[in-house]
């Protein structure tokens, strides 16, 4: 492992252009994670078309680095503006934003820097040790039925993330799955839902859809906040927490690493579940649970350690099984596909260099959070002064170009803006955009593997379910689904 890691490090730092991409990913991830109104997903969506001109290792590495640093960067907006960069930063805002209101933003951001780095580095080390053995095992034990079962489980879990009600979570996933049926069916190549447009025969391209659902819809949400006067400037301070303050929370950090890593492996929601569970555990184990939500440092520490600990773990199902665990890892599947590669066990045999460059990059990216986090956070705090009205047209122009150059079709730009409008309306109605995108990405994978699996077992459902891993995953999915349905009828919060 160490030899491979050193080889990956040498490949990463041996080429100036690769170093440039790494630094761009580190800075860009933090920056986009931290600028309100955009997120690491916005940057990833904008960059997706341009990765076609990079080497496969450079493209995947860039996204992995953005994933690590962007997950941390999203904490900054959560703490300063109460705008989580993505769902996994939402619990950070529970205590981070009250700390800002109390004039302790520096302390909260400092804790986020340190804990994100610790969680991420620990996770990267376990990822390096565990992914390859898991991939080797997967080659022998994972076939189409198991992949379909994993997709099913991932979609069930994804349906409970980010939507205002569980019903809307399901509707989000199903809309994504329905969009994925547009284009040729993956078994017989029959055209479906092209509505007489030849350009739709190839289906809805991922890139314009992702750009629309994330980047464009975010611009519309911010436009609405501007128009209704909800946009607020934060109170900023740069007093970082002391070493003693952080040392007092060492148990919370260790617990959050374990929770983060365990949850990160689950395809579907990974880091989001990790951050929420870790925050919940912090409240459960605390002697003063009533202090949470009012600006308690432990709340920030628990959420930020866990969500970064989940980033490394989330790479395990992606690289070992070819299944994305969230929106950004789903975009990484698109990067692989653009280079005629398929993430999964075979990548370890066909492109071991790529894997170890990515692993090394993730390790150093988490280290970078620690080293340059403090420095860059100060820069970001200054950049926050750029008015959003100047940022918005730049993002829209980048998105337009990104959507167009993939296939050279104006239709893709229209699809992007349509996805942006639909995404905006759905978000404002309480639907979940990550769930839609996961449905869109996993839809074709799920259908193809279901069909192949059924052909393998000669359409005998008993044989299908007699495969132990498949049965366990289907059972886990059904139990989660049953629990979701139970909650759909019982877990009601106060009327809004």
């Amino acid at each position: 492992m160490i030899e491979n890691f050193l080889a990956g490090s040498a490949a990463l730092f041996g080429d100036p252009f690769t170093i440039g991409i790494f630094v761009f990913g580190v800075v860009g991830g933090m920056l986009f994670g931290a600028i309100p109104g955009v997120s690491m997903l916005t940057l990833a969506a904008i960059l997706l078309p341009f990765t076609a001109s990079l080497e496969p290792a450079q493209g995947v590495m860039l996204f992995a680095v953005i994933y690590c640093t962007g997950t941390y960067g999203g904490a900054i907006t959560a703490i300063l503006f109460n705008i989580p960069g993505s769902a996994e930063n939402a619990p950070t805002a529970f205590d981070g934003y009250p700390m800002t209101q109390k004039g302790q933003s520096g302390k909260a951001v400092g804790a986020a820097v340190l804990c994100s780095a610790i969680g991420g580095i620990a996770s990267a080390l376990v990822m390096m040790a565990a992914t390859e053995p898991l991939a080797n095992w997967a080659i022998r034990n994972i076939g189409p039925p198991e992949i379909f079962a994993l997709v099913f489980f991932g979609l069930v879990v994804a349906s409970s993330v980010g939507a205002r009600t569980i019903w809307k979570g399901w509707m989000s996933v199903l809309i994504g799955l329905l969009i994925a049926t547009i284009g040729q069916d993956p078994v017989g190549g029959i055209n479906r839902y092209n509505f007489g447009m030849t350009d739709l025969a190839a289906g809805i391209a991922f890139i314009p859809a992702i750009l629309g659902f994330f980047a464009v819809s975010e611009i519309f949400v911010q436009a609405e906040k501007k128009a209704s006067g909800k946009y607020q400037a934060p109170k900023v301070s740069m007093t970082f927490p002391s070493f003693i303050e952080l040392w007092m929370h060492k148990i919370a950090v260790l617990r959050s690493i374990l929770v983060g890593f365990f949850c990160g492996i689950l395809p579907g929601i990974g880091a989001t579940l990790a951050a929420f569970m870790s925050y919940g555990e912090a409240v459960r184990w605390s002697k003063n649970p009533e202090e949470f939500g009012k600006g308690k440092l432990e709340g920030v520490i628990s959420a930020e350690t866990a969500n970064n600990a989940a980033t490394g773990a989330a790479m395990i199902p992606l690289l070992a099984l070819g299944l994305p665990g969230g929106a950004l890892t789903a975009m990484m599947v698109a990067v692989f596909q653009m280079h005629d590669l398929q993430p999964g066990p075979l990548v370890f045999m066909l492109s071991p260099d790529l894997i170890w460059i990515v692993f090394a990059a993730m390790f150093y990216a988490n280290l970078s959070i620690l080293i340059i986090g403090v420095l860059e956070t100060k820069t970001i705090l200054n950049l926050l002064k750029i008015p959003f009205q100047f940022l918005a047209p730049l993002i829209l122009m980048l998105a337009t170009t990104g959507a167009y150059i993939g296939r050279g079709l104006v239709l893709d730009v229209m699809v992007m803006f349509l996805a942006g409008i639909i995404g905006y309306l759905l978000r404002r109605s309480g639907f979940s955009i990550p769930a839609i995108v996961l449905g869109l990405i996993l839809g074709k994978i799920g259908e193809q593997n279901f069909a192949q699996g059924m052909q393998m077992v000669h359409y005998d459902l008993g044989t299908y379910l007699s495969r132990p891993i498949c049965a366990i995953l289907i059972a886990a999915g059904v139990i989660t689904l049953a629990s979701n349905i139970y909650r759909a009828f019982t877990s009601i919060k106060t009327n809004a």
Partner: protein
Amino acid sequence: MGRLTLSNLIEAAIFLLIAGIFYAFSFEFNQPIEIYIFGATAWPRVVIGFLLLATLGNLWFHYRYGNATQATLGQLEDKADFSEAGTVRRMIAVLLTPFIFAYLLKPIGIYFSAPFFIAAIIWFFGERRWKVILIMTLFIYCVFIGLFLMILNAPLPQGNVSPFYDFSAWVLKLNAQLQGI
């Protein structure tokens, strides 16, 4: 009506309409596949069926509990505030502008339409000082041209209607001359 609101009904109607349209169109490709007994329609129809169930479940939820929320993870969005007519008008303008821009890309091209689009977005986001709008439009346009045309040489829509096409051709010629220098 229970606690249903008009927006709940519209939401349900839209989803039911989507399910209906997709179901109706599924007959267009309802043909057997030799190697797969379920054919090309099975998967989409199962998805449509579940979408129908989820939509009805959501409608029931709103009927029973109004606009309550449930303990799902990571709810990021607060509710939209469209209480003022001005906000609605501005949002409609913001939503339509990119669409008009996209529609005009084919005939007019990006080189000519981009500055107007950039300026419009800056204006819709609340900037009213015309000098600032002008300077920032020029700045963003230059960044865009510099990055995509001069550095990346990205093929962008040039338009197909004169004189817009001629303008795009002039920009490209200028770029070629600058690259030559």
